[in-house]
């Protein structure tokens, strides 16, 4: 069976996440700030009875900060016993990959290089395959 991909838009680019690392797409009802936390943490939000740590995808790429919005879609990603909500510009669809991903052969740009796994083809389009765990870890983890 082919790998399932979640296609979304982040920093204006369409990217693919491995669907197996994603729990689902959630709508966040307000974000509680977490002052002094790592810069790519947008705050906390509640999903049912759980506390989600909201990750600002733009900040994780060090490309800016997500705009404030009353309610917005996020991708729920369980990782190391915590659940994170990754803020993206838009969540599009889940598609089947046409084949295995290919490694990157050239740099794909500041910020992206750190989180990219490779390229992958689906629906006759080529997407950048991004590791959500690396987005969650944030820029500091890379520096360390």
């Amino acid at each position, binding site marked *: 069976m082919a790998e399932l991909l979640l296609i979304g838009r982040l920093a204006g680019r369409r990217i693919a996440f491995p669907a197996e690392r994603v729990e689902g797409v959630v709508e966040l009802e*307000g974000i*509680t*700030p*977490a*002052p*002094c*936390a*790592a810069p*790519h*943490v947008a705050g*906390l*939000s*509640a999903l*049912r*009875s*759980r*506390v989600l*740590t909201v*990750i600002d995808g733009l900040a994780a790429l060090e490309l800016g900060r997500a705009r404030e919005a009353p309610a917005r879609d996020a991708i729920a990603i369980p990782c*190391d*016993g*915590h659940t*994170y909500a990754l803020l993206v510009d838009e969540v599009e669809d889940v598609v089947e990959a046409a084949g295995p991903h290919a490694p990157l052969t050239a740099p794909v740009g500041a910020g992206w290089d750190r989180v990219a796994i490779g390229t992958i083809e689906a629906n006759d389009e080529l997407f950048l395959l991004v590791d959500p765990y690396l987005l*969650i870890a*944030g820029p*500091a983890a890379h520096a360390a």
Partner: protein
Amino acid sequence: MDELINDFIAETRDMAQALSGAIVAWEAMPDDRERLDEIFRFVHTVKGNCGFFDLPRLEQLSHAAEGALAEVRAGDRVADTALVNAVLAIIDRIGELVQALETGESLASEEDGELIAALSGPAAAEGQLAEAAAAPEPEAKRSVRSIRLAVDLLDRMMNGVSDAVLARNELARRLRDAPRDVAVEAAFERVSQCIAEIRDGITRTRMQRIDSLFSGLPRMVRDLSADLGKQVRLEADGGDVELDREMIEMIRDPLTHIVRNAIDHGIESPDERAAAGKKPAGVLRVSARQAGNQILIEVADDGRGIDGEALVRKARAAGLLSAEQADKLSPAQKIALVFMPSLSTADEVTAISGRGVGMDVVRANIERIGGVVDVDSRPSQGVRLCIRVPLTLTIIPALTVSAGGQVFAIPRSAIDEILRAGAVRIDRIGEAEVATVRDRRVPLISLPTLLGIDGAAPREEQKLVLLKPAGGEVYALAVDAVHDHEELVVKPAAPAVMAAGLYAGTTLADDGSPILLLDPSGMAKRAGINFAENEIDRALHAGAAEAEGARETSLLLFRTLDGGRRAVPVAVVERIEDVPAEAIAFGAGKLRVSIGGRILPLAGCAAAPAAGKMRVLRLTDGVAEIAYGFAEVIDIRALVLDFQPAPAPGEVAGVALIDGAQVELLDPHWLFAQHADSGRGDAPQPVCALPEGDPWIDNMLRPLIEGLGYRIARAGEPTDIVIAREEDEVPADANVVRIRASAEGEGVHRYDRAALIGALAAAKGKGHG
């Protein structure tokens, strides 16, 4: 097979641990058949299991011990010290082998033979005989239905239930917003109740009797005192108090250390004790009790006490204390120096207490789990150490506050006091601020500034929360508003959030929004408050804080069965329990309740409930205990008692204003005077001698005298009062009450109850005067 072996290992270990108390008891009383049987059963079971698993070494050892014990059981041999030591050595060896089996290590087998030889001792020749006389297998005495569970499964269940509670809270919130539907609300009520029950049950599965902590002590005390040539009698009390399993593990090491210290440094050698006019055997009392949502564990010895002056000299020598500081220390503060790092009272390092782990580590470990250690010492009378820890780790009582419109929680254990910022002098020193609270300067941290949040309320409208973090110095935290006391289910926060170093975890408010739990010591660290340099000042200030604390009384607020709000000092509450309605009955003129094998007078309710359960406070005055029925706990608050006294003495001492509501304060003195069973407990009772062999005295007078709180003297015992008939001879110096059978004559008539009571009281007064 692996699973069976694991079960065997776990079972053997549990049994060995439970047994150590029995062995010591057996040594003290070799005739104690029950203990002997218990030990015999252990080695017998081990032997049986070993045969099944093909573990020849364990089998040999247990077989040898079984043989020797069988001789004792058959009366062919006396349990002398040599035998007890040999059996102990074998049981230890079994423990080691089982441990090795678990970890896969190997243990040298040479010593096995020696251990077995030590067992046979002088009676080796009779071994064969004992073999033949081997007793039949003793029947299992207790057959409690139980299963073995992995702790992480319980943890998972606990997490699941915590989630269910939060989900229920969210559902409640949505229901409030939705149009009312009676049927849905009823269904929700039921779900709510089920969840509450499950939570209760799971919480209880995580609880363990503190017995499991105490059961290892007798053996340890025995071994230590034997090594040191001291005599120590251990008294353990309150083993039925229950505590979170995790907490028990956290307390184990500190408690062990304190007990070791007490025996090594506290209790003197028999000669030294005799010279000081004490009994040769020292007493070590370990007790546990529950007070509100805290557990108190007390370790007290009657040894030489802590030498405060020696501690001061050491601290001075180590450069930890200036002469000026030393002069200012009160006796209690000198003793508290024992908690300072790198100070140990003993001049010589001994093998028992050693060096390295000091009382400072004990204190740090206790404080890490939100607990407190206090020490109290009297020269040549002994040391009393009191450990106070919260019941569980996962549910934390917290205070919610806000800064810049955002809500945060602060663990209540760290909160000393809450003040209005307008009522406190605040000085600005450079960029920092200092608050002066009752002549005491404390650093002031503004929460909005610390967190970099805008829109803080003006300073005079802010509140100051005085925080005393574990192992740190008191500081004031300025917040915009203080909201509520809540019990919060706390979960760890994601690493990216914890990286801030300010938070202890996350939780959800009733309205479903996330709340960050602040970490008091993390905040102090981030604000740059230096702990280490202030250690001495802290010790100096501890006294001041205590003096303030003394004026405050910790009160348990509760709702009575008829819905009123009342409060009782936490200090007199031993614990809170649910009792079934059947346990409550009207007997001998009072309403009484049976709890844990005891019968206590019951106050606070007029009649037994028809069915179901009743919640009771177990109140204690240190000697007697009474139960007080109530509906629910509202809160625990520390308050300066300021109340309107009741016009006449009664159950209620007066009424106070707490959180804007009138609360009646119970009068424990009146309650005990009215309800407590007299003449119970260990208080010194007046002793009364009675003529012997008179049926009227034995059957009629004796119960009356005992009912009045006197103890009847044993033969030859000194007495306070002697009751004599007309014909009896009495010692010249005794306080005598004469009773007469005839209507006329000297003394009190035997049926004149009032006169008899009066005469006894008069005689007693004379005896004491």
